């Protein structure tokens, strides 16, 4: 059975040839299956570096998503392990880019995976000073304003 192949072109000109099963994981790209076989499909706001990661994720998720969801989860566990390793080895800057790409391409699993990674980074921080340092956020509160915020959400800062 010959599979239909599709060519995706990143914003910086890299070409990725993928099959239908990969394309279908993106709600945005799914409709192109009808009319784009053989032609290059440009993805203007995703660079080659990030598109490469997206394709890698989708390729790995083809096997499982196609199967039946029985309660046997040894393959599910292996996939989860792959997902964990995949997302943990990236630096935060790449994760942000991945969030934007997965959001645009509407690939829910990848989107949630990347968001969870950032949430985990936040959860791992001891206090808001550390969160600022990790995420590179500069505070623009005055001292009074900051005190106000700490008071209005008092219970959250216990």
């Amino acid at each position, binding site marked *: 059975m010959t599979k239909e192949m599709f060519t995706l072109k990143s914003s910086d000109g890299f070409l990725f040839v993928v099959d239908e099963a990969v394309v279908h994981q993106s709600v945005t790209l799914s409709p192109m299956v009808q009319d784009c076989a053989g032609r290059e499909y440009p993805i203007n706001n995703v660079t080659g570096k990030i598109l490469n990661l997206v394709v890698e994720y989708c390729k790995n998720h083809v096997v499982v998503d196609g199967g039946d969801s029985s309660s046997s989860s040894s393959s599910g566990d292996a996939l989860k392990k792959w997902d964990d390793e995949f997302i943990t080895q990236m630096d935060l800057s790449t994760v942000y880019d991945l969030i934007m790409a997965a959001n645009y391409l509407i690939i829910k699993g990848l989107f949630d995976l990347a968001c*969870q990674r950032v949430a985990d980074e936040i959860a791992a921080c001891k206090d808001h000073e550390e969160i600022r340092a990790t*995420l590179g956020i500069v505070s623009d509160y005055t001292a009074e304003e900051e005190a106000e915020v700490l008071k209005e959400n008092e219970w959250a800062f216990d």
Partner: protein
Amino acid sequence: MEDMFNRLPNPLISHILSFLPTKEAASTSVLSKRWRLLFASVTNLDFESDEESPSFVEFVNRVLALGGNDSINRFSLIFTDYPDPDTVTPWILNVLRRGVSELELSVSDYPLPPEIFVSKTLAKLKLGGGDGLSFSTDVKKVSLPKLKTLEIESVVFEEDGVGFAKLLSGCPVLEELVLMNLGWEHWKSCSVSAKTLRKLKFFCEDNDENPKSVSFDTPNLEYLEYSDNIAKKYPRVKFRSLVEAHISLRLTEDQSADAGSSEEDEYLFESDDDDEEKEMVGNATNFFKGICNVQILYLSAKTLEVLAFCCEATPVFNNLIQLTVESDEEIGWDSLPGLLKNCPNLETLVFKGLVHKSTKGCGNMCLCKPLKNPSCLSSSAVKVLKIILSVHIDDDGMEEEQIKHFLEKMPRLEQLVVYFNESYEPSVFELSKKLQSVPTIASPKCNLQVISQKLSLSSTLPCALTKKWSAPPNKEYTWFLKAVT
């Protein structure tokens, strides 16, 4: 380091925050001006506290108020103190109005507002924790058109369980149901009736009473976990589509004592008449008949006891391909031979532990007594036998002898896997060698694998020429770890 969040629009940040407990998400309000209110537009809210402090109440009020009328996806409240209904109820009403689809309440001594039970948006409802959550007669109507998942623990249903039937009948698309410790042993009858149900967990912790009557009318159920004392009767057991079942039925202490003493009496009087009508201590025949279409079955050790003493005749399990049996030194294997004989298509047999109580039923499957009849093992279709050995291998080698006995009797065996939670490697070699030394095995060829934490030994029987040593194959060892927990 550059502020990467500059590139992310607010809705994406809110989505990220939805992966954090609300308390943590709220602490981001102090990061910078942009973050001040972002946490409030998160659609998943969860609040957990062990006391009803003013600052907690204020916080929840504030978060809910900030959300205005925006729709909410999930609301979870875990409260280990006794809440003031006047504080909690407005919160629940607020999120119900905002179309919450997932609601989790773990509070003590709280009468559930009837509004929960007529929500047009709830898809998942989890109630429980502590005690005293009650479903009172105030709940006049139940209509939950979108509810797919329902989990209730320790909820008191007034009116002797009538409320429970009312609740289920108001859930037309229910797929998953978890029932824990609802006190149905005090009800006149407990009936789980849900045509769309696919997964059911029915659990009651150890107690002294038998439920009076338990029925299951779940024709589309595929997965069942049932752990309880046996009911006095099972009027209706409809499991036409059952695929996998985990059964942990128990006799009460009194019943167990009765069963044990009647057995001893028979033993004393040496009754050869096996057809003599014994008065059973309980009757679970209907239940076992009801699950006879199952494909994958897990039986706890106590269930074996129930099968032995409370079942008129073991039904035939035509579709059963995998059977897992837990063993216990207090429980005999009386019911196993009958069960095995009635599993004509069984492919995989798993033993969690190989110990059992020596009873008069011994000698068919095990080595305790010399065999009277041909062993049930000799006609068994089983191809794969997996044995999880107890942590401390008994010193007199009975478990090893038992495994050898399996090899000598089972004619269709293709694979024997022995799992050993033992990190002392020489004993793994020992066991492997002992098993390889069986002079004749019943099947023409059988792969033997002995797996422990760090080591996996493979060989082919009867010829012990091919041997392989390796680190445990991931899949098999993970399976083993899951099976022992």
